[in-house]
């Protein structure tokens, strides 16, 4: 299932440690890069979108285990505690991206998911 994650700029270092912890190699600590998305208040976010395995889901919802390539478990745990997960089923609307939260939308196309979180590309002058 495709996951799309919005990460407030202040949480990027922690979120990248979580990505490194749950990922496939140490290179996954580059998951959240430039904060090129923004909400209605012009707060900036980085975003990632990918097909998550069952192992990723179970890892994200269980006590974290340091991978063989290492990670900062304290930072990763802080990011894990900030996860808000929404799955595209039923009638509920996805949550808006929020400062202090790693908002995870599951089951939607990446761009649609980001729009559903109230985010748009920071260089998109249309406001849409």
């Amino acid at each position, binding site marked *: 299932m495709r996951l799309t994650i919005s990460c407030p700029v202040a949480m990027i270092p922690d979120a990248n440690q979580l990505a490194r912890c749950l990922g496939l190699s140490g290179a996954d600590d580059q*998951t959240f890069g430039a904060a090129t998305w923004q909400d209605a208040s012009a707060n900036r976010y980085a*975003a990632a*979108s*990918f097909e998550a395995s069952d192992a990723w889901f179970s890892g994200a919802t269980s006590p974290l285990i340091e991978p063989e390539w290492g990670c900062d478990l304290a930072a990763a745990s802080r990011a894990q505690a900030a996860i808000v997960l929404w799955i595209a*089923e039923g009638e509920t609307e*996805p949550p808006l991206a929020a400062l202090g939260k790693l908002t995870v939308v599951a089951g939607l196309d990446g*761009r649609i998911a980001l729009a559903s979180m109230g985010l748009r590309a920071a260089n998109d002058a249309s406001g849409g």
Partner: protein
Amino acid sequence: MKFVSDFSFTSAPHRPRADWHPGQVFGIGALGALCDPSIMSSLFQDSAGATPVTAQGQPVGLVRDQSGNGNHAAQATSTKRPYLARYPAGGLRNVAHGSAAVDNVAYWPATVLHNGMTSTKLASGLDTDGLPFVDIQWTGTPTGTLHQLCFAVANTRNAASVGQSWTASAIAKRTGGTLSGVYGLRVDTVEETAPATYVAAVSGNLASGEVDTISTSTRVIASGNQVRTAISLSVATGAPIDVTYRVKGLQLELGSTRTAYQHNMSQYDITEAGQRDVWALYNDAVDDALPVTVPDLGTDATIWCATEAGATITGAQTIGAGSLETLRGTRTVAFGAINRALTAAETARLTAYLNRKLAGY
């Protein structure tokens, strides 16, 4: 036994005798890179090249360069990798992602409670006409007039523009139960404003009988910027219902009429009977990247690519040493760069080659 040899110094790794290949423009001293996702043996799921790509829907972490320069495109961060995808050469029309994935509960859930009614997927498979079907039973006592959640419609959300016509359609017939309290099954086209604000919807005609009936609805986008579909069981409230429908061929497409069904298993796997498959790298347009590191290609370089939008060849490019992105659209079919201008003959051959790729050859 027949021996075929090529000892020329300009020989390229992939240079079929019968068909011209852009590897042929890379002669002695020609620098650059050449990516061809249709050569599956050049694709690997990881950036180290340990795990080959064997099917659509798998991530692509490494594309081996076909220019002979060894400039492979790679992505070390797993979440940023594109996916191998295929789509019909005639064009991608059906954006109801997962409509053909009838045994996948992510698209066609096993049971869903909505407005007092429970939809239960009884069976799925291929119908006699070759269309994937789902048999769904609805039971319960309705507290509302519709059950709309037997298919995960979020997968059908698509960007739309004011003035566009969008058509949703599906084929349905009643295969069990009764019409007591049931008006029928229909397909709606729903206009929204992103993220998910309802604007308006057009309801399709009701399918209620025991023969295949196409329910179709067309909505001209009036003010929104997004469209989706919904499969709606229309009922009366307050009385118990028990009805089963066979549903197949769900399609959401641009235009005002239903066209030939495209089997949409996911956004990575869309096929159509009678159409060749076009292989591409699917870019989520959020964070995917598959860069190639190239040397200085100078100030008269040429870049080409083929995407779902068409083929382009751009000359007189200044490309310094460093990273060059190979993903050029939502679906990248071919990409190349070389440190020189192409001749008119080479440009013509390359144009024909890229168009052949877009035609699924």
